[in-house]
């Protein structure tokens, strides 16, 4: 890694990529910045507003509520998916046709379009035609995601766990596969307990992939849109309206250019900030950790 050749002509290799990403990232982002400081009343009537939109967005009650819901949602699904994903990775078969079959089955939810994931769960949980909705009703449990906010939340979390735990499991599985068999043999000879094997052999090897998993899961859960939109439409009331949906309603539905642009920038910066803080904290923790045997 540290023996890279200094060569500024490498820019030529990066250039085509840079042009494309600039076209789809910088130009649109500049448009957003442009809108966020102006009040656009018509094609020729626009006024500079400074930070006014940002202030009104930060003080907006509905958005603050959506933000809190978003944070709780991300934390809950991380708390469920990370341990569950590790657990599944530990019990997945390592070789043979079973390993291939399980791999294909497990990845399946990841490859379903997000709105179809919403449709699948909408069908699955409806009281009249869905297996889960019908089953719960037969068991005598009140369950209605269009009326009861708690039911809607449980269903959305269940859906997200169903949808994204495979990603965590696959990441951990590939991390586990890179552990040499000799480590396990040494542990057997030492008569290490299952827990000790996990704690001192498997978990240290998983740190890298787990950082990727937490980052990806945080980012994606923070941008979630299509699944809850199809499943609950953000309701009942606004109980399951997350940030992306609030933003889309504001930008496309109400055409409030200035406020939605300001909101966009705040939204983007929050994701960047959290990811950056998480990443640097983990990296610093790893640096400070005294090197201990083997791992």
């Amino acid at each position, binding site marked *: 890694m540290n023996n890279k*050749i200094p060569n500024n002509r490498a820019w030529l290799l*990066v250039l*085509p990529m840079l042009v494309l990403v600039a*076209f789809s990232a910088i130009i649109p982002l500049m*448009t957003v910045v442009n809108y966020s400081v102006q009040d656009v009343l018509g094609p020729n009537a626009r006024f500079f507003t400074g930070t006014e939109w940002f202030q009104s967005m930060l003080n907006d009650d509905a958005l603050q509520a959506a933000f809190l819901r978003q944070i709780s949602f991300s934390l809950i699904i991380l708390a469920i998916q990370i341990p569950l994903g590790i657990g599944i990775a530990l019990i997945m078969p390592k070789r043979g046709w079973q390993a291939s079959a399980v791999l294909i089955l497990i990845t*399946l939810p990841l490859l379903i*379009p997000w709105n179809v994931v919403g449709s699948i769960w909408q069908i699955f949980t409806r009281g009249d035609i869905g297996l889960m909705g019908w089953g719960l009703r037969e068991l005598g449990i009140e369950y209605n995601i269009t009326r009861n906010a708690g039911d809607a939340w449980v269903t959305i979390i269940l859906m997200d766990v169903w949808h994204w735990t495979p990603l965590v499991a*696959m990441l951990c599985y*590939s*991390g586990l596969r890179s552990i040499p068999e000799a480590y396990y043999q040494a542990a057997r000879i030492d008569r290490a307990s299952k827990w000790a094997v996990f704690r001192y052999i498997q978990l240290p090897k998983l740190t890298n992939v787990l950082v990727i998993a937490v980052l990806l899961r945080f980012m994606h859960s923070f941008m979630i849109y299509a699944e809850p939109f199809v499943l609950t439409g953000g309701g009942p009331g606004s109980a399951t309206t997350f940030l992306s949906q609030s933003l889309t309603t504001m930008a496309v539905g109400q055409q409030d250019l200035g406020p939605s642009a300001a909101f966009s920038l705040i939204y983007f910066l929050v994701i960047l900030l959290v990811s950056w803080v998480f990443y640097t904290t983990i990296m610093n923790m790893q640096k400070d950790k005294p090197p201990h045997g083997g791992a």
Partner: protein
Amino acid sequence: MSYQLENTQRGEKYNTIFSKVSPAKRRNRTARAHWRSRFLLGLYLALMILPIYWLINMSLQTNSEILGSMTLWPQNLTFDNYIGIFTNSSWYMGYVNSMLYVAMNMLITICVALPAAYAFSRYTFIGDKHLFFWLLTNLMAPPAVFLLPYFQLYYSVGLFDTHIAVALAHCLFNIPLAIWILEGFMSSVPKEIDETAYIDGYSFPRFFVKIFIPMIRSGIGVTLFFLFMFSWVELLLARTLTATDAQPIGMIMTRTSTASGIDWGTLAAAGVLTIIPGILVVYFVRNHIAKGFALGRT
């Protein structure tokens, strides 16, 4: 293999000396643990498949059967829902549109990401770290943020409602992802290979195409898998940038809900058909996928 066996046996001998548990009991215990983990895995897979099974189940029923009674499997098996989709061009064109922009996106992305990832894995140049970090920030950009500007941008350059518009828009998150994955795979190829090839008189393009790309082909396969995955599942941008000619299947599916109720059978059949391309793609890369998921970094 024999070496492993020997080691295990030796381990067991130590165990018999030091532990109160006899080898037979110990073997029994590991066998039980094995079956327990198989059972748990089976349980998880069954629960995971259940919603998909229900979708398939409904796609094979008529609407009257779906709404009429609760049936755990289709009583009167019918393929009408599928036939309806395959004989109506406004339906199946949705699949064609989706496939087209996904394929375009994969092609564009891999073409620009391969040289860029090579540059990041082999050279240092002014601003390389900042550039890489900026690329990764694009992965974190919520598509909802870009809805309006994309609409205006592509409308003003006359690309609105074309496949290429969606393909370019998906580059926003796919190019950084591809570079990230490919850089990992490329860095695991020893640099001596490049140097030897240059000494042997290979030019850079010839070396890259003839030697380097074949060496990382499993990495490219896995990258393509991820590109397919994220472009295929995205709907928000695809929906915003299209109107009629390039509409993705996900948008056409919303047509099933009309004033007179929802056409559940067709919705379910359309949903099942969106799962199939994913199964095909994952089948092709199944042997490399485990390494690829760690983005070449384990």
